[in-house]
């Protein structure tokens, strides 16, 4: 069984100028112990997806279709009480802004204990938990302002794993850290994941980090998944032109050439281009792309792409 399966998920936001569909008919699955990445530009819907999976979308946003299956539990139909019990215990999130995710006037050990108590678990072995995420003894007694950015992110990881969830969602967990600390934190995340045999959904826009960390990658564009493939396949041979350009826009340490951004702008979600949403920016676009929306299809074993010419 999959650790997490998303089936036809749709999330919309009501806006005075019309409905904005931030996540549009997205399906993918995470196997137990798998590291799955989700990349896309800001506004592509990747963070909204994370919030939707946690059932944390707030008005004017709402989930208007699809299933979120955590093991055999359908999160999309759970009651408020049941979903609160499932968060942290079954599926936990390491937030993006770990700098601001902790309570500044509470010792960090107490914050971990709080999370456990809230789920009816007697807090214990918090020192051990802190050691598992690589924090020195005595950290429980510290306040967030006494910790570095990397240490704060480790505390957030400790909270995320305190009830041994089967799925961990990490939304740009290292975007505010320098590369040296980033590698240390990601190493810790990998260790605790193996410890728990949990699946990780890593959300971000750094293709380098994805290439080094995840097993499979999903690429989002304008609220839709345009490619899913094992990471080696994506690095070796990206099938969707958007994926190809995303990789090319990254500064390479091997060769220095003119910086190539992706020309044009990400489309407005409430006013998507006809057919393939990427066609105005795509160098390979033809008439068919303007007229007909490509659906994700299997190109070869395990490689899906939503492009007429993949």
């Amino acid at each position, binding site marked *: 069984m999959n650790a997490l399966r998303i089936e036809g998920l749709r999330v919309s936001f009501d806006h005075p100028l019309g409905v904005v569909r931030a996540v549009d008919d997205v399906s993918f699955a995470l196997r137990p112990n798998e590291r799955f990445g989700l990349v896309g530009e800001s*506004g592509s819907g990747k963070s909204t997806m994370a919030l939707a999976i946690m059932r944390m979308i707030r008005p004017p946003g709402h989930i208007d279709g699809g299933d979120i299956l955590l093991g055999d539990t359908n999160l999309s139909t759970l009651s408020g009480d049941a979903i609160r019990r499932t968060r942290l215990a079954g599926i936990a999130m390491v937030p993006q802004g770990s700098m601001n995710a902790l309570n500044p006037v509470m010792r960090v050990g107490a914050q971990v204990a709080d999370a456990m108590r809230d789920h009816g678990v007697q807090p214990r072995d918090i020192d051990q938990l802190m050691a598992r995420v690589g924090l020195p003894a005595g950290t429980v007694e510290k306040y967030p302002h006494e910790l570095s950015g990397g240490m704060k992110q480790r505390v957030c990881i400790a909270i995320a794993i305190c009830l041994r969830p089967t799925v961990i969602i990490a939304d740009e967990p290292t975007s505010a850290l*320098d590369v*040296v600390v980033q590698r240390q934190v990601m190493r810790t995340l990998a260790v605790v994941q193996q410890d728990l045999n949990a699946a990780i959904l890593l959300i971000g826009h750094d293709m380098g980090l994805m290439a080094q960390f995840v097993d499979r990658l999903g690429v989002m564009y304008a609220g839709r998944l345009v490619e899913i493939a094992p990471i080696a396949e994506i*690095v070796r041979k990206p099938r969707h032109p958007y994926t190809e350009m995303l990789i090319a826009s990254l500064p*390479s340490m091997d060769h220095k050439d003119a*910086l190539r951004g*992706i020309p044009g702008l990400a489309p407005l979600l409430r006013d998507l281009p006809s057919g393939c949403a990427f066609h105005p920016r795509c160098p390979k676009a033809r008439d068919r792309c303007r007229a007909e929306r490509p659906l994700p299809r299997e190109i070869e074993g395990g490689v899906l792409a939503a492009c007429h010419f993949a």
Partner: protein
Amino acid sequence: MSFRVTTPLLQADRAGRIYGSGMLGSARTVALDDFSLSVGTGSPSITAIVGESGSGKTTLARLLLGLTTPTSGTIRYRGEDIARLSGDSRRAYRTDIQAIFQDPYGVFNPFYRVDHVLTTPVRKFRLASSRSEARALIEQALRTVGLRPEEILGRYPHQLSGGQRQRTMVARALLLKPKIIIADEPVSMVDASLRATILGSLRRLTDELGISILYITHDLATAWQVSDNIIVMYRASAVEAGQAEAVVKTPAHPYTKLLVGSIPQVSLTRDWLATEPDVQRPEERDAACRFADRCPFTMAVCHTQRPPLSRISPCHAAACHLHGQHADLAAEDLNDVLA
């Protein structure tokens, strides 16, 4: 050794900044230690200042911008101490040196529309002779950084994303066509694909308009792509400096090597997580070399003697005892190894 004909436009001359705290300032934090650098000498170039948080890179930017006063040394504009500038020279300094800041939240006044930060410089510096000309200038600057003017103008700051706000600030700097831009982490909050676009437009400012840029970042990869020179900072001092190619391709200081090795690469070789954990010996934190507690090559001399900059090649210097066989480079001659 250092012999300069022209007076640099902007210069940090043995500048230092110490923050005191605690009883009678007993707990001192050295944010920047005896740092010298000239910007805007010779042909226009981009110099990247690379370092982790707390390395002193933002302190350097604030000193050069006159936002913080040095506790030792001097910041000079056209040879004059910026603390003593008056009248015309002060106005010239404020025009010639522009800033793009790290935090796209703090720079906007939430009570004004976004237009305010763009129309103010146009008005103050008389960049346009009519309202429509001003509008055209502003729209062009916004498009250069990948924004749709109709989505930006007329909005309040809270209605824009962090990336949109940051790009608006880059557009504002473009409007003024200054001689030097000090950009403090200008792309740390925008997407990789846009990062390339913004950095590409900064590069064009240097190549086409002759603006020198000090690019302050923690990202060595973009620094290498966009810069002519790189200065690597670690705990208040430069540990390595030189032409970008030399610093990144043949890093000499163990800290720079650690930085280069920590960058996750889009590659089929997956060795990023598997490499040996980084060295950490907190008990050696007070060694003479400030990197000794994290260095895999620490020797006895590192505990007792602070390594001076050694000139490894004409365009490359590093402050490490491993390179002690080369001639010393005085800290105030740092520019000698820069292009």
